[in-house]
């Protein structure tokens, strides 16, 4: 397990949120349930590579790459 950005996930990959690094954006993300310790799965990437959509807290949440960049994660070792 190593620290990474949410943007480094590939479609289908799972990770655990570690920390949120931007004060303003973290307020919004936290309200929507992106809290440290929560599991995220990258579910889809928009055709032009941005924004992305992750499955979190049981629903699908979209965000721009610039926003995903502020989220530090730890990848869950796959299999």
């Amino acid at each position, binding site marked *: 397990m190593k620290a990474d950005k949410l943007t480094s996930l590939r479609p289908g990959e799972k990770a655990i949120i570690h920390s949120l690094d931007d*004060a303003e954006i*973290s*307020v919004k993300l*936290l309200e929507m349930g992106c809290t440290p310790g929560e599991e995220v799965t990258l579910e*889809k990437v928009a055709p032009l*590579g941005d*924004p992305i959509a992750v499955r979190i807290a*049981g629903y*699908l949440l979209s965000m*721009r790459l610039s926003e995903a960049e502020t989220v530090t994660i730890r990848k869950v070792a796959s299999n």
Partner: protein
Amino acid sequence: MENAGQKSVLKRKVALIGNPNSGKSTLFNALTGLNQRTGNFPGVTVDKKTALVRKQFGKQEVEFSYIDLPGTYSLYAKSMDEEVATNVLVDKSNPDFPDLVLIVADATSLKRSLFLAGQIIDLNLPCVLALNMMDDAQKAGISIDVQRLSNRLGIPVVPVSARNKTGLEELEQVLSEHNELPAYRFLDAASISWPAVNLVLKSFAAENIKEYPALYKAHQLFATDEKWREQLADAGFSPNTAQAEESLLRYGVIARHLEACVGKATGNAGFTQKIDRWITHKVWGYVIFLLIMLAVFQSIFYLAEYPMSWIESGFAWIQELILTSFPEGVLTDLIVNGLLAGLSGVVIFIPQIALLFFFIAMLEDSGYMARVSFIMDKLMRKIGLHGRSVIPLISGMACAVPAIMGTRTISNWKERIITIMVTPLMSCSARLPVYTLLISLVIPDKMVGGIFHLQGLVLMGMYVLGFVTAIAAAWVMNKIIKGKGRSWFIMELPVYRMPKWSNVFYLIYEKVKIFLVDAGKVILAVAVVLWFMVSFGPGDEFKQNQSRISEMEDVLENRVDFTSDKYNDHEFRDQLIYMDSLKADSINAALSILNSRQLELSYAGRLGKIIEPAIAPLGYDWKIGISLITSLAAREVFVGTMATIYGAGDDENIVPIRERMAVEKHADSGLPVYSFATAVSLLIFYAFALQCISTIAIVKRETKSWKWPAIQFTFMGALAWVASFITYQLLK
């Protein structure tokens, strides 16, 4: 004690609040029997709506006043629509301040729903939690221990399914009798920023508020009051940190509640995932989007054709009937050429309007709309818009007015203003009548590539033109308008749902009714004024011309009857008939000159003549000028105006307006008025000009100033003139 003979009605104000797309409006409709707009994307409702319902509970009659509100994820509103919702809850002097808050939670994403619920519990208001979408939760295998959740939260919890109308009776029962404040607080808010809470508690000691309301007040004071901002900052209060801290604590509490009350099966959104693989695919995503749009326009043009022609001939029949069975006179003329001509101009477009709204409702209800903003965000951002701007832009194809209200969900001021400014460039349903008429006039009815109708393609081209221009205008404005504030795309993508057909059809019915009544009112008013203006004129010239016309008509009518027995000499009779026909021809020719002169001499004609120099370079004559003026009220008036103007010179024959326009010739040159160049130039003019009073009014309301509607009217008008000028000069 109450007087036994006098029934007392218990009044209860209930506000529905919850996350966007949690089904508040659907529940509101189920409770009140109304038909508020619902749709499967976050941010459908952007304004509040109240309805009264009386219900008998045993001996007690209760009058509920339900308030449907926009959705929000938290009490810290981040856009205008969210503010509408939170304002109702936090300001006790607000007339909509509820006796009871009905928190609507989406049972399939309870975690996120409980966040807002916890905040409301901590506001210390009487509240009830409705666990909505229980049907979906069951399908997904989520089991919720409702009683336990209720015990832990300290408020009543009622499972319902608003869409299937289950659980409503229990809910109403609870709403009628529940009065208590929450049994416990959700969170120890003081620990978040004790100095700030303390400061507020002391200053507002008289109001006797609790800790979380005090913290919330600290946030509000920090945002609005200079002095407080300093004081709070000195006490170490920072809104962002406090909000982040609060969220972390709340989700901590929520995790424990969920642990105790929710049994989770493996959540599967398999259906949504499968569809999404195509809809948001790199290539197919855009291809599908284009194909959908293409299908929409093809069917608007061709499916609607049959009912439209029935309506057209129906009206012609009624007009004939009235002309033949009523005495000739001013009143008959007003009815046939003023009212009926104007009315047929509206009614004929019902099939197209209905189809357009059907498609838009499908896009909105299925969940596709949110995907479109998802795949478009990156492109939109480049030109100063937001992915969400796509929703107002698409619904602007129906009508710009609700679309502009819908921009409230865009939290960034600059992105919102630009969206408002360019939305009226999208081709709305009011332009459809104008486009249809002009296209069918000059574009041949041919097939292209075997499957596409040329006229349908051109119609779609008009919509593309509107869209492309909107994009270009946004790009320019992005360079000019100075922006402030951050923008984000942190948004829920809803699961796909089958549209609810009863909803879709009700929406169509409703929209057609509004179109008929609202547009109808304007059109009829304009038609009456216009009829007056073409039927009367200033000075003696008009009257003189009129009496000459009627004298010549007398001469024509009193012609010799050659069928009588008197003419035994058939050869001579045929000569007489020939001479008579020569005479009739020359009288008819003179009459038609007088008739067209009559219109020119009328008030409308004089007005048209005045503006003719300004529009002649665009290829328009003064008759078209008259319709441009009347269209300022609303675009669809164009068709009725045409009908009235061309009907005015010709009482004898009722022909559909399209056929009448096709044979219209320039008086001097004898060339057709509606040449290809003129018709295309007119199409362009209607595509760009802001001829809609309702839009101007709504932009004023949403931007709270006359500045933006004034800028909008001017730039769209200038664009229309210049583009039509270029078009005409190139094509003529």
